[in-house]
C-alpha cells in the first residue's frame, strides 16, 4: 500500500510541510524539504545514471530540467526505459487545471518538459484540461471553466506540441464512453475513507469533489482512449507532473493492478519559486510574484529588478568580500531553470558566489533569457487559431504517433 498514513496527520499540523494537490507550504515558512518529501511519498530520486540512460536512448542532450535537477523524482521511470529499449513504446499524459487565463512561467514548466519528452522519445501525448475540477473547487460556472480551458489550450499548444501526436481534451467534452467506464471501475476500488485519507476530504465537502479523483486517474489507462490506442491495452503511460500531484497517482497505481492495467510511471518536478523568494507564495492576485506570458519586455525588466529576491549583499564592498548567497538568490535560481548553457551558468554561479559579479549583471542576463522565452511564446501563441484548438481537441486517430 503506497498511501502513507502519516499524511492525514501532516495536513492538520503546521509544523510539518504540507504538499498535496490543493496546498503547498513549507515548514515554518522555510524551504520545502524535497528529500523528506521523497521519503514521505515513497518515490525515487532521479539519479545521474538514469539521465545518462536517457541521453543514450534518445541520442540527444538531456533537457535542461533533467540536467539541473528540476525534474528530480520518479516512480518506475527505469521500467519505462527498460521497455523502451526492448522496443515497447509508451505514451505521455499530463494536464492542467484551467483556473485562470493568466499563465506564468511556472505553469509552462511541465509542458516544456513534456514537449522535450515527446520529441526525444517520439511518443504520443494526451493532455487533460480539468475544467470540471476548477468548476468545483474554484466555484466557477461551467461555461467560464470551459472557456478558460480553451484559452489555456492555446498557451499549451504554443509550447510547440506536434498536432499529429497530441490529443488535448477537456473533461466536460470528453468524459463518457470508455473513459467513463474506466472511471467507474476505479471508483469501485477506492473507499470513502481512503479518499478522505489521501485527499483530505471531510464531511463538509460536496460529493462532486469526492467523485473527482477517478477523472484524473483514468487517462493513465490506454483503454480510456479507444480512438487512439485500440487494442493496445498494455501500453505504458508516463506522467510528467509537479510533485504535489503525486497523491492522485499513488491512488491510481494502487488501483491499476486490480483492474488488470499497468501502473503508470511518474516523473516529478520541484516547485518553481516565486519572485519574492522560496518562502513567498505565487498567487494570481499578486502580479508581481511571477513572470506572466503576457508580460512585455519592460514588465519583465521591471519585475526582475524590483521584486526578484536577491542573494547579493547590502553593499558592494561587502558583496565583493563575501559573495552572494546562492541558496536564496532568485535570479540564479531562475537561471538554473531557463539558461541552457551549462558552462555559462557555472561561470555565473562562481563569479557571483565569490563576489566578483554583481546582482545587477545577473538580473540583466536573466531578463534577457526570460524576455527571449516570453517573446517566442507570444509569437507562437498569436499563431494559434480556434481552428487549431479544434484540431488538437478533435477525437481523431493519430496514425503516425510513434514516428
Amino acid at each position, binding site marked *: 500500500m503506497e498511501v502513507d498514513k502519516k499524511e492525514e496527520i501532516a495536513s492538520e499540523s503546521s509544523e510539518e510541510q504540507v504538499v498535496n494537490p490543493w496546498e503547498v507550504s513549507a515548514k515554518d515558512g522555510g524551504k520545502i524539504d524535497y528529500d523528506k518529501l521523497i521519503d514521505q511519498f515513497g518515490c525515487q530520486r532521479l539519479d545521474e545514471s538514469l539521465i545518462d540512460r536517457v541521453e543514450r536512448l534518445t*541520442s540527444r542532450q538531456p533537457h535542461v530540467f533533467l540536467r539541473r535537477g528540476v525534474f528530480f523524482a520518479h516512480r518506475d521511470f527505469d521500467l519505462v526505459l527498460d521497455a523502451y529499449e526492448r522496443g515497447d513504446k509508451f505514451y505521455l499524459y499530463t494536464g492542467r487545471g484551467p483556473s485562470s487565463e493568466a499563465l506564468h512561467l511556472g505553469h509552462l514548466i511541465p509542458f516544456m518538459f513534456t514537449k522535450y519528452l515527446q520529441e526525444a522519445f517520439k511518443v504520443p501525448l494526451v493532455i487533460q484540461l480539468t475544467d470540471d475540477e476548477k468548476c468545483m473547487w474554484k466555484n466557477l460556472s461551467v461555461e467560464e471553466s470551459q472557456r478558460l480551458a480553451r484559452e489555456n489550450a492555446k498557451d499549451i*499548444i504554443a509550447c510547440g506540441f*506536434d498536432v499529429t501526436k497530441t490529443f488535448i481534451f477537456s473533461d466536460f467534452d470528453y468524459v463518457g464512453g470508455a473513459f467513463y467506464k474506466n472511471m467507474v471501475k476505479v471508483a469501485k476500488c477506492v473507499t470513502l475513507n481512503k479518499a478522505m485519507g489521501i485527499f483530505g476530504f471531510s464531511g463538509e465537502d460536496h460529493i462532486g469533489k469526492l467523485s473527482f479523483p477517478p477523472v484524473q486517474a483514468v487517462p493513465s489507462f490506454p483503454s480510456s482512449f479507444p480512438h487512439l490506442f485500440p487494442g493496445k491495452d498494455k501500453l505504458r503511460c508516463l506522467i510528467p507532473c509537479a510533485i504535489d500531484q503525486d497523491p492522485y497517482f499513488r491512488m491510481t497505481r494502487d488501483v491499476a493492478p486490480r483492474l488488470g492495467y499497468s501502473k503508470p510511471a511518474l516523473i516529478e518536478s520541484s516547485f518553481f519559486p516565486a519572485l519574492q523568494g522560496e518562502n513567498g507564495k505565487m498567487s494570481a492576485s499578486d502580479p508581481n510574484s511571477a513572470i506572466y506570458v503576457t508580460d512585455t519586455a519592460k514588465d519583465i525588466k521591471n519585475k526582475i529588478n524590483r521584486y526578484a529576491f536577491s542573494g547579493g549583499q547590502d553593499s558592494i564592498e561587502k558583496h565583493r568580500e563575501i559573495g552572494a548567497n546562492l541558496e536564496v538568490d532568485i535570479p540564479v535560481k531562475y537561471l538554473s531553470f531557463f539558461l541552457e548553457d551549462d558552462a555559462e551558468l557555472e561561470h555565473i554561479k562562481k563569479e557571483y558566489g565569490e563576489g566578483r559579479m554583481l546582482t545587477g549583471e545577473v538580473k540583466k542576463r536573466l531578463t534577457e533569457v526570460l524576455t527571449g522565452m516570453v517573446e*517566442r511564446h507570444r509569437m507562437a501563441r498569436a499563431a494559434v487559431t480556434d481552428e*487549431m484548438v479544434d484540431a488538437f481537441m478533435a477525437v481523431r486517430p493519430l496514425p503516425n504517433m510513434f514516428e
Partner: protein
Amino acid sequence: MYSSLIDPNLLIAKDSQALLVNGYRKPNLKTSNDPIRRINNTKPTLFIFSAPAPCSPKFFDNDLMGFSKDQLLSQLQELEIDYSKYEHPPVLTVEEQAKYVSSSEGALSKNLFFKDKKHRYYIISAMVDTKVDMKVLSQRLGLGKGGIRMAPEEALAELLQVSLGCVTPFAVVNESARDVSLLLDQKFKNQTRCIFHPLSNNVSISLSTSGLDKFLQSVGRDPVYVDLEANPVVGKDQPPDLAVYVPSNSVVIPELPNNTPSAQASPPKNVSAEKTKPVASPKPSKSPGNVKSVVQNSGLSVFKNPEKFVEEILDKTSELLFSEVKGENVEALAETLRKRLTSEFTHLAVMYKNTAYSEGFYAGTQCQPKRP
C-alpha cells in the same frame, strides 16, 4: 612465402589509378582483424612486397584511447619513414600554421572532415589552393548534390580522436576511424614533401607522399589520390567516379540527432558498380532493392518531421556558406549556426506544421461529400 595469402591485385596497385581501372572495387579499408593481417602479424621489416604491410601488435592496445602524437612519431621511425618535425604553439587554421612552418619545408595541407546523410565519414586532405567544391564532391561520391556537410565536433572527437583544427590523414591510425574514407589530393604527388599534423595541433611534420603511403599501408589502408578539382559529368551513363570510396559502414555517434537504434541495425546498402544512383535519403532505406521508393520515403519524412526538415534547411545553408566563403573558420561558423538555430527553427517548423494541419482539418469539416 606469404604470396598465396595476399591478393595479387593489391601487389600491382601501388597507386590508386590501377584500383580505379579494376572497376568499382571497394578500397581495402579492412582492419587488423582481417585474417590476412593476423597471419602476417610480424615486424614491419619483413615485408618484401609493396602490398599492405602487417602492423605491429602494439597498435591494438591503444585503440581505445586513441593514438597519441608520440606513438605516431615512433611508429614512423620504426617504419623508417623519413620526416621533419616542427613544433609550434597550437594552431587552429592553415593561416596560423603558415606563420610557423614555411613553405620551403613542404606543401601545407588543408584537411576537411565531412559526413553524409547516412552517417558515413570522409577525410579530404588537399593542397591549400586546391578548390574543394562540396557539391561536386558529393555528386562524384554518388550522394546527390547536397549529400555531404562538415562533420560535427563530436564526430571529430569520437571517430578521429583529435581536437578541433587537427584533422589529418594520420587520424586513420585509430580503430575508431576504420570506417572513415580518406581521399588525398592528387597534387600532393608533385610535391617533394607535404605537411600534416601528427595528431596534435602543436606539431607539424613534413614527409614525402611515399612516406605517407608507406604509413597508410602499414595500418591497412590503400592510399587513395584523387583529382579533387575535376568536375566530371555524373549521369545515367556516367556513374559517379568516387562512389567506390564511400564507406560500406555507417557510424553511429551518440550525440547526433536522427540517430535511432535502428540505424545501427540496417547499414545503408552498398552501392554496386551497376546501379549507382545518387540517393540522398536521411533514413536508412527499408526496401533496399527499390531505389524509387527510398527517394519517396525520404522526401516524405523531411516534410513530416520538423527536426528532419530543419536539418535539411541547415544542410543547404551550410553548403552555400562553404561554397561562397573562404577560410578555415567557416567550419566553426557553420557549426555555431547549426547549434544555435536548430532549436529556434524546429519550434517554427512545428508551428508551421500545426497550422497547415489545422487548415486541412477545418477544410475537412467543411468538405461536401463527393457527388455519386
